[in-house]
């Protein structure tokens, strides 16, 4: 199976989701080389991917390419995919991948499968599993056309280092047709000082059980002891206690952290929709019958006002934070 992975630079290397996508590609490729494409990145950023098994990478140079101009990037990715004749293109299911992958699928006449949580190579055909109906069911899907474009839910595929490959890079200059119309980025508002739930490894969320915004320091302190981001249920966002960007769930963000701690959250299905693929789920709730406990790995039946400070102290002893 010949696979092209669309990568994103970050810091000295790549985004974690890019390493995850490479790992998933390597395990599906059945020995075939996995190729990458990246926009406005340096060779040294790309070279960080060799330990994950990436064989080669096309780099599209130029600062104009670091902007999310989805029509241009999609056109370039489709051109690259055609030039090296791959059957499969993989993206992360983040804002970048979600905007570009559908366009690439249209350009390549490929089947599109988004938000995958499992990928398999079934005798040369890519088969994917994805959650549907807010995680209440899962479907196995495959493309019925020759090509497939997939996006992978962040944090579900664990990036694994392999034997370092000798990664070769080459410059790729796309030929964007003059009639391609795109939306362009004119500015970026960054949520200052807060770790975003969609990028956090650990999330501590608070719900209506906290009784008021003035008690959220309990959640924040626990988050601090874990180096975690703060999340919230819709009930507390709607009440104006917390900003919408912290909302986890169907109408908020879909997250899949290594650990999700739900404090005073009942576990309504729309909340579960956003966090049920978390690796470890911890719940603190005074109602032993709260639905959140049915999805919890570890649960503490108790009052958040008493439990959270004790939990933060006990965790700090272990983490030193």
């Amino acid at each position, binding site marked *: 199976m010949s696979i092209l992975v669309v990568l994103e630079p970050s810091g000295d290397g790549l985004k974690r989701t890019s390493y995850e996508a490479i790992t998933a590609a390597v395990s599906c490729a059945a020995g075939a080389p996995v190729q990458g494409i990246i926009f406005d990145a340096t060779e040294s950023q790309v070279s960080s991917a060799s330990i994950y098994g990436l064989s080669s990478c096309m780099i599209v140079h130029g600062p104009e390419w670091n902007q999310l101009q989805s029509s241009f990037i999609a056109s370039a990715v489709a051109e690259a995919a055609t030039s090296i004749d791959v059957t499969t293109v993989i993206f992360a299911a983040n804002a970048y991948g979600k905007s570009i992958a*559908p366009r690439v699928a249209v350009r390549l006449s490929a089947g599109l499968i*988004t938000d995958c949580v499992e990928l398999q190579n079934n005798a040369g055909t890519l088969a994917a599993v994805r959650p549907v109906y*807010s995680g209440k069911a899962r479907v196995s899907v495959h493309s*019925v*056309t020759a090509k497939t474009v997939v996006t992978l839910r962040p944090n579900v595929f664990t990036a694994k280092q392999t034997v370092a490959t000798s990664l070769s890079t080459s410059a790729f200059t796309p030929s964007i047709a003059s009639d391609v119309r795109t939306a*362009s980025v004119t500015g*970026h508002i960054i949520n200052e000082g807060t770790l975003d739930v969609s990028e956090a490894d650990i999330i501590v969320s608070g719900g209506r059980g906290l009784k008021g915004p003035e008690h959220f320091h309990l959640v924040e302190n626990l988050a601090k002891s874990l180096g975690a981001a703060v999340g919230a249920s819709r009930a507390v966002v709607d009440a104006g206690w917390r900003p919408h960007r912290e909302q986890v769930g169907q109408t908020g963000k879909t997250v899949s952290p290594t650990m999700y701690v739900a404090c005073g959250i009942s576990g309504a299905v729309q909340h579960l929709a956003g966090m049920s693929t978390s690796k470890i789920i911890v719940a603190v709730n005074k109602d032993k019958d709260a639905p959140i406990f049915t*999805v919890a790995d570890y649960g503490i039946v108790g*009052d958040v006002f008493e439990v959270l400070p004790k939990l933060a102290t006990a965790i700090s*002893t272990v983490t030193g934070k």
Partner: protein
Amino acid sequence: MNILVCISQVPDTTTKISVGPDGTTINSTGVKYILNPYDEFAIETGLRMKGQHGGTVTTITIGPETAKEVLRTALAMGSDTAVLVKDPSRSDSFVVASSIAEYAQESKPDLIVFGRQSIDFDSFQIPPMVAEMLGWPDIATVSSLNIDGTDVTAESDVEGGKLQMSASLPCVISAQKGLYDPRYPKLPDIMKAKSKPIEERALSTVSPRTAITAMSLPESKRLNTIVGDSDADINEIVRLLHEQAKVI
């Protein structure tokens, strides 16, 4: 400005899901269907843009006969016309997107408004697909929007913040919660909407590009270690997180 709003009908999120006899779709008996919550924001956005710039709002859905219900809601909220593209089998996103793009090629709207995602398959596929089919720009997950002449400026929610984006009409946007609060239709409007005509069209003849081979209910592999709130219990959970789960 002529506006096309795309909406879908989805199972109510609290509905219990079971796998139907074919093994690939849900058992629809007893399932309550609702207007996709994000599409309420889309309808409202269409109506607001009409309010600011004049023109018409047309609402379209691709679905079975019963999907007329969501079109009636859109009509009651103030949509001028409604179109049902008949699709008894709920086709894949490519067929849905093609049907919308074909309609747009004929009706030539200036703006197509979608919801951020449909909450049945949460696929985030249709808006950029339609935009690509039409050769238009699109701005996803829009939480603030301004249109001036043919200039569109919008804020798009992304991880860790918002992007300020610009594009020109004709263009596609998808509405995020917070863009505009949907209005509640008034009773007389609900009554009037019941007798308004709904245009019916045939589904695009393109073939689907994906196939579902199996549907299953997720099995819980959770540890379910539930304890009380004594100091010993709390310390034990922290020990397990450290030594068993190895997450701290």
